[in-house]
């Protein structure tokens, strides 16, 4: 090792606190990225595994509209060759629904294991083990198979008889066997049963939800397509799977953006640490240059230190990221389960690219951050290191230039928003430009603020403190920039979440008009989610009802892929529950009654449809165009939905089932008492969700809160990184000022006074960061609500401001600043004056 390198290492070693903080900041930034990646990758992997377990080697799937597929089609297909020379391809019939065991919801898969085995689906073939198991699978009432882990969690052993709920009805099941996860991965949280049993439980006489197929090539696909009756469609399995997971696309993009923010703050930290480490050694470097060390050698030295920091930070960050990722996965899974589909994640997947990405990010950040100080050092003349004053003068010039850059960044952000059309990525890019602008503006703002405040105050001490901030811009500026950026993001996110919450609450109040809602359990648009006719009769016979609305949700195919239909029979006069954003109510509703549809705002955005357009849907009779009469506000479904009159729906899809009722009570009738009466009416027939208007509202808001929990966790992580940054920068600055303070002490400053001085300075900087973050945070909130939300989900949110959103940020800024002042204050109060002044 060269002397140069040894000197460098020794320097780092002699400043462990500084080193640790820089490392912690970098590690936390990297960890956030890695954690998000791990959580989303694990969720995706679990999703794919469970699909593969059911689908096997299927290449395509046949689906039909709401009433499902007639099994005669399956029988006929198995007999029909798709080409002269080849036998018919393997098919697998499937009926999927949801079942509840206790508190746990599982995906119920009804399949034919013989067909599944032919297709290579683990779900089916794993169901056949020993001879008794085969016999019982087909002939024993209630026979099911579960993954071993799921069975253990439910306290069920093979041979157990237990009760479960399918479509709200209690049924008896018998656990035939459990499947070893090593042999049948992806089967956890699936409840496998024979297709006959699934049909009996769902009371779907003979219908199938899907037929999987393995097709040899485009010719077979075309031939099969020709064979299919109207109302059915053939889709590549992968595309269907992608589409299912793509449901979560906007959600995962959101997460990744948040993690980048964390890293960005990390870059500032590294910059602060490296530049400080360099500045401390300016005299040394000057001497080294005089002794013959070349510029290139110095450059290499500084960059080498940064690289070392980067590697250490990457190692720590990746390890930390894996840990955080595990925890974050719980949150991600819960959100997916709340909003999208039932998913159990058993394994934490750590993708190699993620680790590589984490490493690369750490190294890149470290090197980028070190480049400016390194170039500066390399540029300094032999023997004549720049004095601090020259350096700070330079920093001031730089701050001014950065302020100019900030204006350009702001302009770029605006142009990006305008120029990126509907691109979500463009929205996030603009957001980052905006945050960078905040960072670039912060040093100049800090200086200006410090000077202005100094002019306003009469206290000499305060003036001294403020002047010092302005004069040490190379350090204070960086700290304030990092904190300001984090605070701006924090304010933006808080405003966005609160705005969304208020909009949602208003929308719920407007939309939920009935006093009581009754619905069959299960995912909104699943085939099995229907109220039984005798249960409907019993409910409607309950005394105290004035009127009721009827609803059925279904997935139908369209020229744009699968869409969710909300078929409704409204109570007269309740059309106001749907606020039309486009289209004239006086024309739209009569058209609706005649067969036109209304589309929700997210759907209108996604498909770029407006009133007057025609939406082609695949009905039971084939493709048919439906005129769009209006666009309504809807926050419940980010993929969007379309509203259709129940009679129109029944006419075109031959589906008489109802999924939900909205009950309007006569004046003076007690709601809770009626809920109890309704529960009694349905008892023993079908388990239903019977909720009062208030309960439903409460539940919707709860789900909303859970969804944004992750966002909250992430922004606290980002804020944590920023706080660390401020801490490390302030600490470094204050420690370097030990001599100055000692001088002040000889001039009469008491230990307490020096602590107060330090505290004043850090608090001022925290305040400055906050002030810079205020307008920036508002801008960020605006971008998040009006650009990001619009582009991700299609809906528009009104901006709602709240003091708490800002107070939180202020609190964070001040607390961080105060904490940063603690150690230097303590040191300054105990410093040995002689020692500190010796060099003077």
């Amino acid at each position: 090792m060269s002397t140069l390198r040894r000197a460098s290492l020794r320097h780092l070693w002699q400043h462990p606190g500084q080193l640790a903080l820089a490392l912690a900041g970098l590690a936390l930034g990297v960890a956030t990225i890695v954690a998000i990646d791990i959580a989303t990758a694990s969720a995706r992997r679990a999703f794919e595994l469970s699909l593969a377990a059911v689908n096997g080697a299927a290449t395509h799937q046949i689906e039909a509209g709401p009433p499902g597929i007639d099994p005669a089609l399956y029988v006929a297909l198995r007999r029909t060759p798709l080409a002269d020379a080849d036998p018919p391809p393997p098919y697998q019939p499937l009926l999927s629904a949801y079942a509840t065991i206790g508190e746990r919801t599982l995906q119920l898969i009804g399949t034919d294991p013989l067909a599944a085995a032919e297709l290579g689906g683990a779900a089916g073939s794993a169901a056949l083990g020993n001879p008794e198991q085969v016999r019982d699978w087909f002939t024993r009432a209630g026979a099911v198979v579960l993954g071993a882990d799921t069975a253990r969690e439910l306290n069920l052993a093979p041979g157990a008889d237990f009760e479960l709920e399918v479509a709200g009805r209690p049924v008896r099941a018998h656990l035939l066997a459990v499947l070893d996860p090593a042999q049948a991965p992806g089967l956890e949280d699936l409840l496998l049963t024979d297709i006959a049993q699934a049909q009996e439980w769902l009371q779907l006489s003979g219908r199938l939800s899907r037929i999987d197929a393995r097709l040899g090539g485009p010719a077979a696909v075309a031939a099969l397509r020709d064979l299919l009756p109207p109302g059915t469609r053939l889709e590549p399995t992968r595309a269907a799977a992608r589409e299912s997971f793509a449901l979560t696309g906007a959600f995962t993009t959101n997460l990744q953006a948040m993690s980048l923010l964390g890293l960005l703050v990390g870059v500032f930290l590294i910059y602060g640490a490296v530049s400080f480490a360099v500045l401390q050694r300016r005299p040394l470097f000057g001497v080294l240059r005089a002794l013959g060390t070349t510029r290139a050698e110095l450059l290499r030295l500084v960059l080498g230190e940064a690289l070392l920091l980067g590697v250490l930070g990457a190692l720590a960050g990746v390890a930390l990221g894996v840990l955080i990722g595990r925890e974050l996965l719980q949150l991600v899974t819960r959100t997916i389960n709340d909003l999208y589909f039932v998913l159990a994640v058993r394994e934490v997947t750590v993708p190699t690219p993620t680790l590589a990405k984490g490493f690369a990010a750490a190294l890149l950040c470290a090197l980028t951050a070190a480049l400016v100080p390194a170039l500066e050092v390399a540029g300094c003349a032999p023997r004549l290191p720049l004095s601090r004053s020259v350096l700070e003068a330079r920093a001031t010039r730089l701050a001014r230039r950065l302020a100019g850059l900030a204006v350009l960044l702001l302009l770029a952000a605006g142009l990006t928003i305008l120029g990126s059309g509907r691109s979500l990525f463009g929205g996030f890019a603009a957001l980052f430009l905006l945050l960078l602008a905040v960072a670039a503006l912060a040093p100049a703002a800090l200086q200006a603020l410090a000077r202005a405040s100094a002019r306003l105050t009469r206290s000499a001490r305060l003036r001294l403190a403020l002047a010092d901030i302005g004069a040490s811009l190379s350090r204070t500026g960086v700290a304030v920039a990092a904190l300001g950026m984090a605070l701006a993001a924090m304010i933006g996110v808080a405003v966005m979440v609160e705005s969304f919450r208020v909009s949602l609450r208003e929308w719920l109040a407007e939309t939920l008009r009935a006093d009581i809602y009754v619905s069959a359990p299960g995912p909104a648009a699943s085939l099995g989610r229907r109220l039984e006719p005798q249960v409907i009769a019993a409910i409607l016979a309950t005394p105290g009802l004035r009127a009721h609305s009827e609803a059925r949700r279904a997935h139908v195919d369209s020229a744009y892929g699968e869409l969710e239909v909300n078929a409704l029979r409204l109570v007269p006069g309740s059309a106001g529950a749907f606020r039309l954003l486009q289209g004239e109510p006086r024309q739209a509703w009569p058209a609706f009654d005649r067969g036109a549809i209304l589309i929700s705002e997210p759907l209108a955005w996604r498909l770029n449809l407006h009133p007057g357009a025609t939406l082609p849907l695949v009905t039971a009779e084939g493709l048919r165009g439906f005129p769009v009469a209006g666009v309504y506000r809807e926050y419940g479904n980010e993929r969007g939905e379309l509203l259709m009159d129940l009679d129109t729906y029944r006419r075109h899809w031959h589906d008489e089932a109802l999924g939900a009722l909205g009950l309007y009570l006569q004046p003076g009738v007690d709601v809770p008492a009626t809920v109890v009466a309704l529960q009694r009416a349905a008892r023993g027939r079908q388990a239903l969700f019977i909720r009062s208007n208030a309960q439903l509202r409460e539940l919707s808001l709860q789900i909303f809160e859970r969804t944004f929990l992750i966002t909250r966790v992430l922004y606290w992580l980002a804020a944590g990184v920023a706080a660390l940054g401020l801490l490390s920068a302030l600490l470094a600055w204050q420690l370097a000022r030990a001599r100055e303070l000692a001088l002040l002490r000889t001039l009469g400053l008491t230990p307490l006074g020096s602590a107060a001085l330090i505290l004043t300075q850090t608090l001022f900087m925290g305040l400055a960061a906050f002030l810079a973050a205020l307008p920036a945070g508002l801008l960020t909130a605006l971008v998040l609500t009006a650009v990001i939300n619009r582009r991700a989900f299609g809906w528009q949110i009104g901006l709602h401001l709240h003091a708490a959103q800002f107070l939180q940020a202020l609190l964070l800024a001040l607390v961080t600043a105060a904490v940063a002042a603690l150690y230097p204050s303590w040191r300054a109060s105990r410093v040995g004056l002689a020692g500190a002044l010796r060099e003077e």
Partner: protein
Amino acid sequence: MPRLRIRGALALLAVAAHAAPLPGPAPGFEPVLAPRALHFPADHGPHPAFRQEWWYFTGHLAASSGERFGFELTFFRFALAPPGAAPAGPSSWRARELYLAHFAVSDLGARRFRYRRKLARGALGLAGATGEPLAVWIDDWRLRAAPGEEGVHWHVSASEPGYALDLELSTDAAPVLQGEAGFSRKGAEPGAASYYYSLPRLAARGTVRRGGAALAVQGLVWCDREWGSGGLGAGQAGWDWFGLQLSDGSALMFYALRTRAGTRAPFSAGSFVAPSGHAQPLDSAQVRIEAEGRWRSAEGTVYPSGWHLSVPSLALDLRLTPELTDQELVTTPRYWEGAVAVRGQRGGTSLGGAGYVELTGYAPERPPGTGSSLGPRLAR
């Protein structure tokens, strides 16, 4: 004979053989305890009172161009529950029976062996069997009586990737009742028996499709029919089955049951059908068989390959040579079932012929419960 089928197919579906340690009949099913009169065409059809049953076709076909093919097409019926048992539910997918079929083609010119398996429940018309008119099917693989025809005028069809078979089968000869007037014992225990008859020389005419090309073919087909409710005799490991159609118009069937100790079990038996159609039973002592070669499959199983078969009492001396060495079906269980060429003499006169040999119990079985008995192989 049990032709693989009891042990093989049942293990395959894992329904009965392992489940019933004693070969006695399963409760609720009719046991096979004594001879009974067989009536045709009724007995060509299914026997739902019994637990298992099969229709087994093997044959040699030749096209006018000289192309030669061997094939195996089998249908198995397995009852999951006795006939009177109430179904567990009302779904139209509820099934009391499962059906299994194997279809294998030995393309002798191309020296290629291809096979496929089908499994389906007896519900919704996916698979099933009816007596009058005779029909047995899984999807588009079927056996059915030609409409309007009396006697044995059947139609069989099946397809697998690359090959499809479509044949008319007919014979005027009466079925050959194996064993004691069709009562075929497999072991000493009561119920270790089945009803068993053969149609050893069905005239076949039809087409073999290879790739896109249809070849007109004709040839001779052997049909075995067997049903019962019990399993194999105790201590038996497998069997070697021979069905030979000789050029002088005669036919010979023999099954050698092998014990776990490697010796031939005493219940091994067969029959010889003279050109006149007269059939005489053969007991184990009358038939000598020596394996003349061995073949090791890719999976490491060693099968005998090539035989010297003689029946001194008939002055019959034959050498059997596999048309292809590899005619192994890698299913669960694995077995070898292949076309053989026959050369030899009877009463000093040299003759030729063709036949099928089935070898079971050579490959080690996976213990039940280790994953799917239907296995990934099915994906072929």
